[in-house]
């Protein structure tokens, strides 16, 4: 493990559809076919009804910032040049909250309630991270 590299997502059987769809620049969420509800984090069972009929469906990609932080401490060598950088939780239109980061916005402009939409960052040949940018109106 290269400790100076940026950590990549850990792909598991439960979350693989999420990361594979990100590579195709589509944000997909697990939905319970019985409850007709999306949930996160990905799991093979529905947290509401414990059902096993899980579909992966495309989400709108829209949401609002529910909270955010700005990192000043150089914990990761690979992120040192980005300091200060943000990380945020986004409440998706479908309900679940996703941890990500915001782009195309200054850290000082970020606020809880900011309306955002997903964009996709191909960080290397194998990994694409969803990020969010302020939603443009009209």
């Amino acid at each position: 493990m290269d400790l100076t590299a940026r950590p990549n997502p850990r792909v598991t059987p439960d979350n693989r559809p999420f990361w594979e769809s990100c590579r195709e620049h589509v944000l997909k969420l697990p939905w319970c076919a019985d409850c007709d509800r999306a949930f996160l984090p990905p799991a093979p069972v529905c947290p509401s009804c414990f059902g096993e009929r899980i579909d992966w469906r495309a989400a709108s990609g829209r949401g609002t910032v529910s909270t955010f932080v700005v990192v000043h401490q150089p914990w990761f060598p690979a992120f040192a040049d980005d300091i200060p950088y943000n990380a945020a939780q986004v409440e998706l239109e479908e309900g679940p909250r996703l941890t990500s980061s915001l782009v195309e916005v200054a850290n000082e402009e970020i606020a809880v309630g900011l309306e955002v939409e997903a964009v996709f960052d191909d960080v290397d040949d194998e990994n694409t991270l969803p990020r969010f940018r302020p939603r443009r109106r009209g």
Partner: protein
Amino acid sequence: MDFNPVDRAAIAGIGASRFGRHLPESQLALGAAAFRAALDDAGLERSDVDGLAVNLGWPLGLDYDRIAEAFGLDIRYVNQTWTHGRFVTMALQQAALAVAAGLAEVVACVAVASFTRERDILGGPGDFEGMREEGGTHAENPPYGLTAPAAGAALAYRRYMSLYGATTDALGEVAVTLRSHARRNANAVMRRPMTLTDHRASREVVAPLRLFDCCIVSDGAVVVLVTSAERARDLRKPPVFISGMQGIRAGRDEFIFAPPGLGINQQRPGRVTPRPEDGDAWRMADIERDDIDGLYTYDAFTPLVLFVLERFGFCAPGEAHAFVGGGRIALGGALPVNTSGGLMSEAHVSGWNSIAEIVRQLRGEAGERQMEDARHLQWATMWGDSIVFRR
């Protein structure tokens, strides 16, 4: 079987190593010093200890088998959790239940934390806590550079500020108050005076949290000896009884560093505490919240103090940021909190330093920090577990 744990177990002895930063002693050496002091405090022999409870194993502290081997113990009961501060209450509860149920006569809760030797585990590439596949348990997410427990407390407090109009000065009130307690404690690591201005001037770590919102990174050990109430009555010091308790909470409304309902991770809105089940420990002890003379909590980050006040209903949701000022959580105030300085200013022995302080206060051994006529003191954490102690 009708099994009632109320007042069936008691703390009979406490002991501590010295606390400091970059101490030369190993985890075993710190643990042995605390263990020896606890035995002496209780008037017990090493051979009397037949149980161990541990919440900080390798690499930060010591695993139970290494303790037993190195200290020459003969152990018949063990409880050890994954190495994490959230399990302080659980370790103490399991010790109390074990002696009440006859699984052990004397359980030693052995807490050793050598944070300065192992500081790579607190954020960054060496922080395996944050590497869980769907994000760490404090909402760490390393692909986005989000790491270290502080990040989770910062995420929660940002939302709290937005919902309730709170400011970071409320956090400063907590830091300054706990420092004022440490200044009355000769064993505390951080005793320099701190003002709100100092807090505002400290560097940002993960905004909205500053350096003085984060507990100290220190080394030290505390050992707490738990035995049956009957046996404790015959020992050297007055027993401190375990009168009520409630366990750690988990579920989709729980995030380790945010009260239910705040809206971090998948917490649903409107599920705010206190709910009836948040008062289980008081009901078990047959007291009311108003009977609590002082509150002790896991203050790894200043927001956790606000959140535990709301979780347990000492303040309504959104009110703690106004409550913590005005000396209300200071010694002599309405509800003194962490009277020895806590993790913020005394030492980070995973909260066991505050458990030891509860015992000193209830015995009347707290010196210039002594509260007047304290009868019931409560240990309670942001994540909902608790123990009520009485003398």
